[in-house]
């Protein structure tokens, strides 16, 4: 029997996550600006940018897939958030999670990238094509250690349900996967760096080189859709990482704190290291991340 109450509950989760994402990305941008000794954008800037982009009067299209690209992208983010349990032990915020949601989550992580590739490919801009070819090769490579880490975790806890994995990690910080299987977590975090669009793995967007890669031709509401996804998707992804490796969250404050700290990992790395070229990042994943994933598998 399907509980209809789950739908407004899931929408509530989405609402909280969108607002938290808008504020947190602005905060992260401010932190990045402070590293450069600037003050950076106001904390509410993302809201205004969104309203403005939805409010632009004209927009043009390059074809059918050009429309669908941002829609696929947003579907990837929203789908991810709807099908993973956000707060452990909460009836309200467990969303539509089910026994095999880990597999679905893995699929949704890749879904938006593919949609974006199709949409941006149709825009016909050469920079978009360059960005896509770079992005797909890099994301595919980053996905490999993540998949290994996820398999290791699934083997370790003998389940494919995220809720069960979080349940197995309760009862103290030493029960987290971070401590019970450090190699898998290391592999997953390396893959995490590769998928956050921050240096050293931001050659896909590469603002000074192929301005700005896949979304070059996107504007107005298309861009606004993608901006919306850009605040939802990283948080949904981090929520999965948090559930699999860092003990999950039993309440919203804990969730906010853990998501922020995990996000900051990529920011710290990003402000310190310069950009990899694609072949360098692929080599880096093969040499460092994949063996970690193999070790994590062997560990269990």
């Amino acid at each position, binding site marked *: 029997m399907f509980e209809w109450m789950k739908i407004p509950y899931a929408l509530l989760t989405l609402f909280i996550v969108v607002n938290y994402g808008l504020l947190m990305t602005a905060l992260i941008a401010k932190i990045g*600006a402070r590293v*450069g*000794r*600037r*003050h*950076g*954008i*106001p904390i509410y*800037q993302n809201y*205004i*940018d969104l*309203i*403005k982009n939805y*409010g*632009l*009067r*004209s*927009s*043009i299209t390059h074809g059918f897939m050009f429309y669908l690209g941002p829609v696929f992208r947003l579907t990837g983010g929203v789908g991810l958030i709807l099908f993973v349990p956000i707060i452990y032990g909460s009836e309200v915020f467990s969303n539509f999670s089910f026994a095999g949601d880990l597999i679905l989550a893995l699929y949704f992580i890749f879904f938006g990238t593919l949609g974006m590739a199709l949409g941006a490919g149709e825009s016909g801009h050469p920079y978009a094509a360059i960005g896509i070819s770079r992005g797909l090769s890099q994301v595919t490579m980053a996905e490999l250690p993540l998949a290994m880490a996820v398999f290791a975790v699934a083997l370790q806890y003998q389940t494919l349900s995220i809720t069960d994995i979080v349940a197995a990690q309760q009862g103290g910080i030493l029960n987290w996967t971070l401590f019970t299987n450090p190699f898998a977590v290391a592999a997953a975090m390396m893959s995490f760096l590769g998928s956050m669009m921050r240096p050293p793995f931001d050659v896909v967007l590469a*603002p000074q080189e192929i*301005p*700005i890669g896949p*979304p*070059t*031709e*996107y*504007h*107005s509401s298309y*861009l606004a859709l993608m901006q919306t996804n850009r605040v939802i998707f990283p948080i949904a992804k981090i929520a999965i990482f948090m559930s699999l490796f860092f003990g999950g969250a039993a309440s919203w404050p804990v969730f906010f704190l853990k998501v922020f700290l995990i996000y900051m990992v990529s920011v710290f790395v990003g402000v310190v290291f310069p950009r990899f070229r694609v072949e360098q990042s692929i080599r880096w994943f093969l040499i460092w991340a994949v063996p970690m994933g193999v070790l994590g598998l062997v560990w269990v």
Partner: protein
Amino acid sequence: MKDELKKRIITGPDGFEFEVDPLNDYYCDAPPKVHPPAYVKIVEDLFNWARSESIWILGFGTGCGAIEMRPLMTPRFDAYRYGVQWRPTPRQSNLFIISGYLSVKTLKRVIRSYEQMQSPKYVIGLGSCTINGGMYWDSYNTIKKLDEYLPVDLYIAGCMPRPEALLKGFEDLKKIIRAGEGEGANIYAKNFDWYKANQKKVIQDWDMPDYNW
């Protein structure tokens, strides 16, 4: 017209022949439309406020004035505080700063970039050169009055104006937008023939359709 822009038949690597018509394949020559503020007043006011507080500048420096825009991104002036950001593509930009003198060759690129921007869009003329030619008043190869070629919302006078003047200019532009007077795109669409005639008068090798978004 240049050879590479002419319609021709090309044989692909697998022997398949197809027709290439660069002017139709790569450009759209549909004329620009007037986009009226069709919303309820309060909604339009909200959008105008958002547009004024989120100004995205096209990263396109045309003359020596471009060097005055760089300090705005750095710690000393930091224009990001005021909602001003730079975008690398005309599709996503709202504000085009013509930074200083504009040679005829650059004017062509400026027109293409301007027409690719989405409505509503704004133009700032930076420095004396955009007002009356400035120190290039008798040059054979620069345009003298910018507003004969593009609808200008605001001029920032000086040779060169300092970054503080630019910041003040942004604040004034915000007032213009909030008052609902930043309708440059519609003015351009309404007086399209006049602008095109002026542009074609100075650009000798016009090898693109009249309107190319």
